[in-house]
């Protein structure tokens, strides 16, 4: 039994407790740092040699304490759940935004909405029926028809603009995915080196986890823990990041809304052009909007325009204009984008239902006005579009708000493991401080013991 072993035991305690205090300090310093995981000094008592041998009799109380490692407290399963909830959350958030955008274009319930303008158009037909000779009423009708046509084509154009903007956004997001993936690969390398060198890499890992979360939010990517403490990121089964290497993804598909048929927007691997699966996240919602939602609603708007053109033209060409000649189509075009008023001369409006000579019959205009009640007319088509947009937007909003709660619960569970609790750190600090004081007292005790031994003993015969 060594005389000085007590001092070295106390010294190891001083080292260890100071380390524990440092860790508590680091935790407190990062209490508000996004993505920081609390750390804990893993203390281990130093015992006797594990292999007994002759003449190596060891009867000490122990060799003190050692900081085995500084651990990062984070639950892999909770992280996994957090990533999948965040991926779903950002998918629904994007969906909500997209549908709200469409709703803003077509869902006008007020006086300037398409429904209101159609009603005004039918009323204008009635006015012409009342006063077939009144050019003012006829002009008013042409103006109103022009307003309806331009509203339709404007709404179609705005939906097209939204498509173009989102297509560009997809490009930006994919660049972000690639950058993030290569940063994760860099961090993987750094973590590997640090681990093999026995250096702490907790902060690097925190940063890497944050980036993996970002990838999950963007693409719904899944994460697996690879060899040597690296983090591998997969996009639907294919590796986006494996160890220190990355595979880049690119955007493929139509760059214009008109070229969308048979060429949907998607992601593919830059190396071999295989399509890359995007299981969730913002990008998934954006491609869904580009490939399905926006074109669908635009087609619905086309249906409204087509109903307007067909119904009005059918009746209009069956009538006769102010001079008694057969009516020509009032609208041209077949889609919301192309619809326009074909007539500029108000006298050419076929208000009359009587053929032959010029007359002031208004029965055909009356028939046109009655299209307001047509169950297959443009009003009905527009109402059905409206209800579809409204339901879709409402569903997306509700799902998103429910998902927010779920995501918050997952985050709270993650936080409950990784988050810093000030009270806990204070307690740890207190414990470390007291332990430090105790160890120092042990050292003082040993010191005074040695003092007694060295200075107060062996004085016989002096």
């Amino acid at each position, binding site marked *: 039994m060594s005389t000085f072993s007590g001092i070295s035991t106390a010294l190891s305690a001083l080292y260890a407790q100071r380390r524990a205090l440092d860790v508590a300090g680091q935790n407190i310093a990062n*209490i*508000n740092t996004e993505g920081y995981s609390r750390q804990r000094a893993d203390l281990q008592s130093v015992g006797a040699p594990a292999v007994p041998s002759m003449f190596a009799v060891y009867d000490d109380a122990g060799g003190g304490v050692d900081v085995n490692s500084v651990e990062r407290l984070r639950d892999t399963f909770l992280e996994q759940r957090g990533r999948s909830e965040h991926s779903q959350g950002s998918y629904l958030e994007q969906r909500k935004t997209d*549908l*709200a955008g469409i*709703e803003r274009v077509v*869902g006008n*319930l007020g006086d300037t909405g398409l*429904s*209101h303008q*159609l*009603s005004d158009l*039918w*009323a204008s037909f*009635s*006015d012409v*029926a*009342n*006063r*077939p*000779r009144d050019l003012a009423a006829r002009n008013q009708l042409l103006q109103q028809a022009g307003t309806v046509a331009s509203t339709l084509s404007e709404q179609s154009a705005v939906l097209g603009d939204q498509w173009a903007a989102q297509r560009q956004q997809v490009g930006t997001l994919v660049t972000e995915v690639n950058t993030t993936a290569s940063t994760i690969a860099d961090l993987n390398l750094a973590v590997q080196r640090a681990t093999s060198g026995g250096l702490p890499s907790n902060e690097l890992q925190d940063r890497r986890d944050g980036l993996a979360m970002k990838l999950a939010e963007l693409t719904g990517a899944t994460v697996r823990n690879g060899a040597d403490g690296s983090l591998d990121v997969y996009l639907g089964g294919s590796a986006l990041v494996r160890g220190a290497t990355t595979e880049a993804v690119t955007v493929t598909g139509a760059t214009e809304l008109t070229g969308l048929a048979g060429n949907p927007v998607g992601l593919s691997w830059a190396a071999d052009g295989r399509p890359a699966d995007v299981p969730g996240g913002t990008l998934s919602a954006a491609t869904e909007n580009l490939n399905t939602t926006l074109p669908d609603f635009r087609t619905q708007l086309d249906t409204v325009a087509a109903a307007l053109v067909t119904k009005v033209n059918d009746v209009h060409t069956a009538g006769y204009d102010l001079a008694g000649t057969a009516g020509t189509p009032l609208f041209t075009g077949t889609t919301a984008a192309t619809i326009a008023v074909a007539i500029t001369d108000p006298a050419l409006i076929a208000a*009359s239902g*009587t053929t032959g*000579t*010029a*007359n*002031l*019959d*208004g*029965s055909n205009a*009356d028939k046109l*006005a*009655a299209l*307001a*009640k047509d169950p297959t007319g443009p*009003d009905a088509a*527009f*109402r059905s579009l*409206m*209800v579809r*947009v*409204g*339901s879709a*937007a*409402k569903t997306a*909003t509700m799902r998103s708000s429910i998902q927010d709660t779920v995501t*918050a619960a997952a*985050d*709270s569970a993650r*936080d*409950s*493991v990784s*988050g*810093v*609790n*000030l*009270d*806990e750190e*204070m*307690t740890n600090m*207190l414990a470390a401080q007291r332990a430090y004081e105790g160890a120092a007292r042990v050292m003082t005790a040993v010191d005074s013991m040695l003092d007694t031994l060295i200075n107060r003993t062996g004085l016989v015969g002096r």
Partner: protein
Amino acid sequence: MYTRITQRSIQSTSLAGLQLNLGKLGDLQQQLSSGKLITKPSDSPSDSVSILELQSEIRANQQYSRNADDGIGWLNTIDNALSGAMDNLHRVRDLTLQGMSTGAADAQAREAIATEVDQIRQGLIQTGNAQYLDRPVFGGTTAGSAAYAADGTFIGDTTPVTRTVGDNTKVRVDGAGPDVFGTGDTQLFTVLADLSKHLRQDPTQVGNDLGHLDTATSRVLGALTDAGARYSRVMQLRQSADDRVMDLKSALSGVQDIDLPKTITELQMQQVAYQAALGATAKVIQPSLLDFLR
């Protein structure tokens, strides 16, 4: 195992709660300032469709009312014209009887009567050309400005002029010239021309003319009654269109507009909730063990 609660999770939960409360407050504020419960389809897809339907229904009924006003103008014109014509026809009948009793002797007196009949005939032809907004009300859909030529022949057409004054309800608002003033021998203007001719040249025929005149007069009277009946029908339909607009507007308001007292109460409650959340947040984030350690 207890669930660890950290300052940061309390902070984010509090923040989320505050956001939620403030969001609800904002929604209520927006409802109050716009006065509308539903401003976009996703607020309530089914109610939005009701709103659109009610709006177009209101617009249609307002137009029915306008159409009825126009119809009332036509029928009023017919009524005035025919009432005036009736007075003149009574006068003609008096003159005819006078002419018959004057006998064959007094040619001068009969000439005077015939002259007055001619004048009345001219006046009645003008009545036959009565116009509403530049259109002859007895001329059907003619593009011309007269229903009868100066010689009393019908130059209009008989296509009916109708006004839509309700769903699938059309009312005829013109009076077809031949229906009102007759055709052939008993056409009013022919009768009057004959009368004047016979008064001058062949008084024996005047009795026969009197019969024709009575036929024509009763026809005009019939047309007048008919126009009156249609007038009151259009008036009724206009009233019902106006009533319907009121009903529909109140239905629209029921769907779309906010209930003011209810919304204000909700706003107050939400404000209290928000203030409570603020107070709780301020209290909960503040203390930690730090406050109690020396």
